[in-house]
């Protein structure tokens, strides 16, 4: 079971150019809204036609612009869960589920799916009478009844309240495991990707980066988009100074690095956990900063800082997060000394 995708489509202001392969795994497509995530899934499903390229599923060519192959979505055997679930509002739950199955194996198969998705008793309800979670179960049941070869999930939890998400996510995780074939999950939520996916591929501005194991993306992002999407809040343009020194242009400061600095560096990123309050006697990578603003979150105090002794005028702030079980800065603090851990600077070359 595998899929290989290589497609291009020009939308004028925005160009989609996506290439990836996935085997028997859950591949996450991580990107900000409007980066072409949903469009990629729609192209694979066949409801949108790319300009050129090739899509092959389990050795079956679904689309090939050179050989003029473009299978209609009806013949692609793809199960796609749409963002709003796309249940047919005029049909009951049962009719929705039966919509996609062939007449011969109807009754037995439908009963099986109804039981599996805990929908017994709801057969006669209309989608509008169901809760968000029930709607998702109906949409999934409707997909599984057609025995798809691949599962495409488009932001499966975006239509739900946050307290409903967790339960549904665990349920969906189990369905994906049972399904066992290739699953593509599109999301803008790094935690969701981290929990549900085996590998991940970052999509920004219509173009994707190489797919990597999920853990690698979070440990060692390679690009600005990947760092940003994996939750890194402090990113600055950067240049190479020496083997172990990097200049962060947006903050106007140099950092010492324990790891060798690559010559083609374009950005340096620092995880929140690697920015600490400097202790007495700390010398290396210590910055004296002015406190610009202070925000309070549920579990964190957030301070926006500006380096005082910079080589050029800083254009961005540094964000310092202090967990609430540590003491915050004094309420009228004007300046603060912070220390950047030299071991964990992230070097990005795109």
């Amino acid at each position, binding site marked *: 079971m595998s899929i290989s995708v290589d497609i291009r489509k020009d939308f004028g202001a925005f160009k989609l150019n996506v290439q990836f392969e996935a085997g028997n795994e859950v591949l996450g497509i991580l990107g900000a809204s409007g980066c072409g995530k949903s469009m990629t899934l*729609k192209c694979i*499903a*066949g*409801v949108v036609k790319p300009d050129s390229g090739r899509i092959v599923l389990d050795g079956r060519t679904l689309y090939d612009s050179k050989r003029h192959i473009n299978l*209609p*979505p*009806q013949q*692609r055997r*793809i*199960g*796609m869960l*749409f*963002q*709003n679930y*796309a249940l*047919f*509002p*005029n049909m009951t739950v049962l009719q929705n589920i039966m*919509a*996609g199955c062939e007449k011969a194996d109807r009754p037995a198969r439908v009963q099986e799916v109804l039981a599996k998705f805990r929908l017994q008793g709801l057969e006669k309800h209309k989608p*509008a*009478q*169901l*809760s*968000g979670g029930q*709607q998702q179960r109906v949409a999934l049941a*409707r*997909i599984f009844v*057609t025995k798809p070869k691949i599962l495409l999930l488009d932001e499966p939890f975006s239509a739900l309240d946050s307290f409903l998400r967790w339960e549904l996510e665990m349920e969906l995780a189990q369905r994906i495991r049972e399904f066992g074939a290739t699953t593509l999950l599109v999301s803008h939520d790094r935690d969701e990707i981290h929990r549900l996916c085996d590998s991940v591929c970052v999509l920004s501005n219509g173009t994707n980066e190489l797919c990597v194991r999920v853990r690698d993306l979070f440990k060692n992002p390679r690009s600005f988009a990947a760092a940003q999407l994996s939750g890194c809040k402090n990113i600055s343009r950067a240049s190479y100074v020496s083997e172990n020194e990097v200049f962060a242009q947006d903050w106007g400061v140099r950092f010492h690095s324990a790891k060798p600095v690559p010559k083609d560096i374009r950005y340096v990123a620092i995880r929140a956990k690697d920015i600490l309050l400097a202790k007495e006697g700390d010398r290396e990578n210590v910055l004296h900063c002015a406190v610009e603003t202070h925000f309070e979150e549920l579990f964190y105090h957030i301070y926006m800082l500006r380096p005082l002794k910079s080589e050029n005028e800083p254009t961005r702030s540094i964000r310092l997060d202090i967990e609430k079980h540590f003491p915050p800065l004094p309420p009228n603090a004007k300046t603060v000394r912070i220390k950047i851990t030299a071991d964990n600077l992230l070097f990005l070359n795109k």
Partner: protein
Amino acid sequence: MDWYPLYNSIRIALVSCGIVFFLGIFAAYYVAKLPRLVKGLLDVVLTLPLVLPPTVVGYFLLLLLGPKHPFGAWFLAMFDTKLVMMWYSGIFAATVVAFPLMYRTARGAFESFDESLAHSAKTLGLSNTRIFWRIRMPACRQGILAGTVLAFARALGEYGATSMIAGYTPGRTATISTTVYQLWRTNQEALAFQWVMVNLAISAVVLLSVNLLERRNTAPKTAARGEA
């Protein structure tokens, strides 16, 4: 009182409404898919009868169907059938005038249709014909019904183009609206008033049903939100 005008009016309205129903939906569905420039142009042409004075529509219809003009003459020679000054001439007038109402309302309904429903239906393997009749049409039902009722009402009330193309012959081409004008012109004010009341009654029923349809359209949605 001679009820022929009522019978004739309703006959004309029903037939033209039937024609407009299919033509309007067909046009709305295909125009919505066209590239923007063609769409804009066609939209103007198809909506024109709504804003043109009915007499201008009548003039164009006479140009097309009149026995002294090419198409009308050919039709007369071919089928030995006159297209103007007959009871069914009113159908032509009513169809052209009512068409934009159906077309516009249906197009609005099609445009507000959530395309992801059609997309998901396709991935589930439903044929395009089934998607149109089982999913798109039911989802747009309220708009299409409202358009049909409006088109019917407009066809029933057609006067200007009808009077030019069908004229007024009592017992043959008379409709309610041409009868009212004729009675008023010949000083039969009381009788004219009776026909006015008939017309008012029909219009009131039609508008009432439009309102009911619209209310049914909005009510279930708000009710459902609370549970979700």
